[in-house]
């Protein structure tokens, strides 16, 4: 009877040591006087984050004594915990994810805009597509049909629902299924889904494949929609406001530069993505205003609440 007891004891001991070592490893970067601050930012290797790569290239961060290190993660799901745990000082995430995180008590604080829809119907950097020759001509025809979204219950699903509602259909009648952007067009062509919402460079691929654009859903969700933002942890915002201010300034300069130099944006895309030169030349770029459009964030929050993605009114304390 002794063996199981000993075994149990050793298992418990192992578990405790593992947990302790895990807690002890939370990285904290003390800044050395005279040295530039090492700042890690969690981003996603997509078109939307071009300004920060451009800003780094242009020296907007180094001239503010920031040694910027960009790490590409697999999406907001990895970036938000990374920022909160202090692995990254800043991160990039979409507006609705940040609103949901805030409602759940995750201590994050937005610092500036990330990217914005162009606001022009039919000329945005993302769109709702159906197969060539599909009988569906309006988003309201999607009621009872299946639409692919990159993440369920997030900003893309909310946008598609907004398009359906605007066209006079019942958004509750649309079925959504989760597919990564690269898998959407094949699924649409094979008839596994009836509609897809894709962003660049997959929009360019969808157009090339003859798919029909039936809505610019980001535009339908809100005018000048702030799709994503750069954010930090509340902890860093209070413990090192100077660093946060310098990063924000550099980021705003980067956004303004990207907005006025679209050709540089297309060039820098070639450094951190593998989007081919032909596609880079013709894809639709998002807008990069420096400031967050508060009205659009409010609108995203309200619509998310009406669909139950948020349980209360959006907490705009998230915004700077």
């Amino acid at each position: 009877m002794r063996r199981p007891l000993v075994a149990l004891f050793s298992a418990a001991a192992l578990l405790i040591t593992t947990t302790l070592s895990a807690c002890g490893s939370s990285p904290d970067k003390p800044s050395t006087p005279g040295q530039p601050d090492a700042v890690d930012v969690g981003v996603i290797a997509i078109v939307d984050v071009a300004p920060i790569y451009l800003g780094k290239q242009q020296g907007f961060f180094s001239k503010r004594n920031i040694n910027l290190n960009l790490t590409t993660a697999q999406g907001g799901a990895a970036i938000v915990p990374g920022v909160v745990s202090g692995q990254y000082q800043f991160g990039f995430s979409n507006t609705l994810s940040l609103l949901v995180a805030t409602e759940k008590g995750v201590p994050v604080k937005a610092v500036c805009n990330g990217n914005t829809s162009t606001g022009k119907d039919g000329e945005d950097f993302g769109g709702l597509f159906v197969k060539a020759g599909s009988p569906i001509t309006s988003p309201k025809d999607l009621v009872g049909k299946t639409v692919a979204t990159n993440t369920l219950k997030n900003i893309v699903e909310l946008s598609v629902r907004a398009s359906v509602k605007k066209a006079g259909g019942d958004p509750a009648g649309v079925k959504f299924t989760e597919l990564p952007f690269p898998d959407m067009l094949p699924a649409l062509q094979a008839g596994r889904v009836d509609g897809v919402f894709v962003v660049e460079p997959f929009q360019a691929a969808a157009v090339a494949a003859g798919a029909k654009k039936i809505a610019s859903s980001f535009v339908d969700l809100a005018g000048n929609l702030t799709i994503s933002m750069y954010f930090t942890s509340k902890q860093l915002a209070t413990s090192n406001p100077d660093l946060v201010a310098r990063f924000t300034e550099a980021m705003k300069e980067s956004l303004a530069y990207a907005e006025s130099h679209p050709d540089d944006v297309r060039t820098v895309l070639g450094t951190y993505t593998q989007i081919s030169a032909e596609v880079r030349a013709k894809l639709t770029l998002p807008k990069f205003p420096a400031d967050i459009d508060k009205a659009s964030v409010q609108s995203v929050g309200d619509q998310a609440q009406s669909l139950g993605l948020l349980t209360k009114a959006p907490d705009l304390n998230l915004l700077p």
Partner: protein
Amino acid sequence: MNRTALSLLGLATFAAIGEVAPRIGLVPAAYAPPTSRIAVALADEAATGRFWLALRDTVLTWALGLAIAVVAGVVIGVLLGAVPVLWAVSSSTVEFLRPIPSVALIPLVVVLYGSTIRSTVVLVVYAAFWQVLLQVLHGVADVDPVARDTARVYGLGRWARVRYLVWPTALPYVVTGVRLAASVALILAVTGELVVGSPGLGKEIEVARQSAAVPLVYALVTVCGLLGVLANVATRAVERRVLAWHAAVRTEVGT
């Protein structure tokens, strides 16, 4: 025809099928590009520094993870195998931890270390360690009881018994463990890069995928396959060297 010629013929046939199938419309060329386009994408990519950095990172992650797993597996394996009370205490824990798939630890390492090589090395070590450990345990258990008693009677100390009795018996098992661990380690290295986003070929595959660069995705996958072949050839070469003295009694013949 000899074996090598036949293998090359097989590969050439495979490449030819890959070339023809999309061209005659058997599979959509947009998502399954012909072999020649994949080759062109690979050649273009090989001309960039980015590719070689990614290759280096993957090899580094693999080698580092494998080295840690082998050293830890051998040391802990010999220790647990040689001291019965330690094994009695730890066997249930080993049996509990061993079946946990390494990829199930991805959320944990992401929170602990983010998208770093360290995260992926942890996954690699976790997966490869058990392969080595179990082989070492079997090897240590395989010591001939007569030889063991003889060694005791002749008064060999604990260390001498490990050195002259346990280790030579266990070595073929250790080498098998290393060979198994080497391929598992490569799988986990690429998986980690792909899912966690740590630098390496796996991450480059994901970036190419997110960039709608389909031929490049296949090109990078091909490189991962070649790495696997190389890893296997290398471990088999090491195996033949280390076990040269043992080859006569081995039933398995290296190819």
